[in-house]
């Protein structure tokens, strides 16, 4: 109460009680750092739903060898397109492989692609954005023209064309996603850098004699973290969607590796007789993408209060 101490002690107890109702609770307001952050995030109900789904997916991915009832690659041609049963809760696919086990293992591909592609593109985009925004001039012009050109292509068409040219496989897919996705981060960071680089605290750092690297990392980058985190969490969902779609088309991960996109494709072939073979992987993709979008929205609300009523 020290902020209000002088005025409050001078008025009567009753008035003080009344006033306190309007004074924000110290315990809620002054909490800084991670505790307040987590607490605020958890007030955003959909973020909790998202966190639970992501936790489940990570659990599936990490413990896939332990929780899968069968080997996801084991072919059993005497038992193809089996109906759901106790031993095969989701039945078997066209080669008699256990569908549930393949879905557990598929979580690995989805999460790995989603996260890795985000890390690669966010790192590249951040670096280029920092350089473009901080130095300006010719470097800035070149980098921004490159992003302009890339943004003329729809991300998905660009990614699958490039992935097709590079050849199938998860590594090439991640590369193809990143080669387009860095542009978004680059623009966000560049915009942030330009908006903060003439602020007093950056000028002060310069006057003290801080080197460019130090100013960029400690003064400029740290103040640009919020939009970066929001964009990353949203883009993990987007990348998972791209991987699933590319694998669905046969460009991404190659069979027999279990991926939700591949499961969906092979399940689509037997929609009439075994609809759950395509419903289950599709539901998994939807839920995981939804979860990352929920978290992204929650993060935006918490990290950037100005955006609370937007989007």
């Amino acid at each position, binding site marked *: 109460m020290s902020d209000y101490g002088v005025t409050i002690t001078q008025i009567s107890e009753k008035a003080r009680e009344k006033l306190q109702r309007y004074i924000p609770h110290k315990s809620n307001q002054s909490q800084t750092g991670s505790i307040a952050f987590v607490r605020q995030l958890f007030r955003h109900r959909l973020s909790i739903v998202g966190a639970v789904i992501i936790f489940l997916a990570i659990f599936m991915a990490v413990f896939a060898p332990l929780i899968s009832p069968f080997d996801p690659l084991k072919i059993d041609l005497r038992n193809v397109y089996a109906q759901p049963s106790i031993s095969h809760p989701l039945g078997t696919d066209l080669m008699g492989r256990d569908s549930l086990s393949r879905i557990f293992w598929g979580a690995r591909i989805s999460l790995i692609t989603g996260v890795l592609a985000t890390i690669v593109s966010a790192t590249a985009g951040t670096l280029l954005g920092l350089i473009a925004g901080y130095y300006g001039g010719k470097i800035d012009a070149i980098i921004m023209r490159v992003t302009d050109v890339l943004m003329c292509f729809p991300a998905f*068409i660009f990614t699958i064309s490039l992935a097709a040219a590079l050849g199938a496989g998860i590594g090439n897919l991640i590369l193809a996603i990143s080669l387009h996705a860095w542009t978004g981060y680059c623009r966000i960071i560049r915009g942030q850098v330009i908006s903060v680089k003439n602020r007093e605290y950056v000028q002060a750092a310069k006057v003290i004699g801080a080197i460019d690297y130090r100013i960029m990392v400690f003064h400029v980058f740290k103040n640009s973290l919020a939009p970066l985190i929001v964009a990353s969490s949203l883009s993990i969902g987007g990348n998972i969607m791209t991987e699933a779609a590319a694998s669905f088309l046969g460009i991404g991960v190659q069979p027999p590796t279990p991926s939700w996109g591949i499961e969906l494709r092979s399940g689509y072939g037997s929609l009439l007789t075994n609809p759950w073979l395509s419903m289950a992987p599709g539901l998994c993709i939807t839920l995981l993408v939804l979860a990352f979008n929920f978290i992204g929205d929650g993060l935006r609300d918490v990290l950037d209060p100005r955006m609370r009523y937007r989007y």
Partner: protein
Amino acid sequence: MKAYIIRTLFLYIPVLFGVTVLVFLLLKVVPGDPLSGILSISQVNALTNEEIAALQHEYGLDKPIVVQYFDWLGKIIRGDFGTSIAYTGQSVWDLISTGLRVTVPVDLLAIGIGCIVGISLGIFAALKPNTILDWLVTTLAIGAISIPSYWLGIVFIYIFAVSLHWLPAAGWVNFSDSPIGWLKSVILPVITLALGVSGTYMRYARSAMLEVLTQDYIRTAWAKGLAPKVVIIRHALRNALIPLLTIFGLSLAYMLAGSVLIENIFALPGMGQLTNRAIFSRDFPVLQGILLFVSSVILLMNLVTDVGYAMVDPRVRYK
């Protein structure tokens, strides 16, 4: 205004140039023989070394890459997009224009429906922020953009074609052959695409409207006693729609990308299927043509948006 348009046009020329360079380079990163950009792999394997060298000379593949680029660019400018590898002898431009006749009506219908549904729901949500309606719309919008369109298409096929037998599962009927058959064949793809579009528009419309409602001129409009209808429609809505112009180009890009998957599911012989086949058969001249076409359309849409923006919002012109 004229000066603004000319200035904007000049900004687009280097970008267009960059797009052609990138599309050209895409073919060059293909691992393996440079001839794989012209012949299929089995054809290349059947040739002797002398024949390969002769063909490389014929197609100018032995020239420096810069010369090759300008040769290629010259052909593009003259309207020669090359010939397809997979559909032997067919010109790329013919394939694209045939595909467009299928894709464009479907995409336009989907954008139309998606815009109307999305914008109206978004605006209703913005008028009653933090209510159940608002919460429902926001959640629905996140849901709509999180569902993979192709899976949604499969779910619709299962419900409306397999279970209820209301509509055909897949396939294409020309409008000139049977308008009703055409409508039946596009109804599911259009709804599937429109849902994704509406999700995006809901979010943007809501945020744009909320932004506008906090402006001073809205408070003034209320203060001078205008009827709520007038304040919301004439003062708020008209200004809230301006930022939505920018995502119109975006939604076009989304549609063309979405078509790749949707047309695959519903077996529509449009641009999306063409892209798919081109990727699968490594038909790089077709793929180049498609990429060039799509990016030019997006560039043109951006230009139209920029100019349209300057027309409706004079402040932009003087920046």
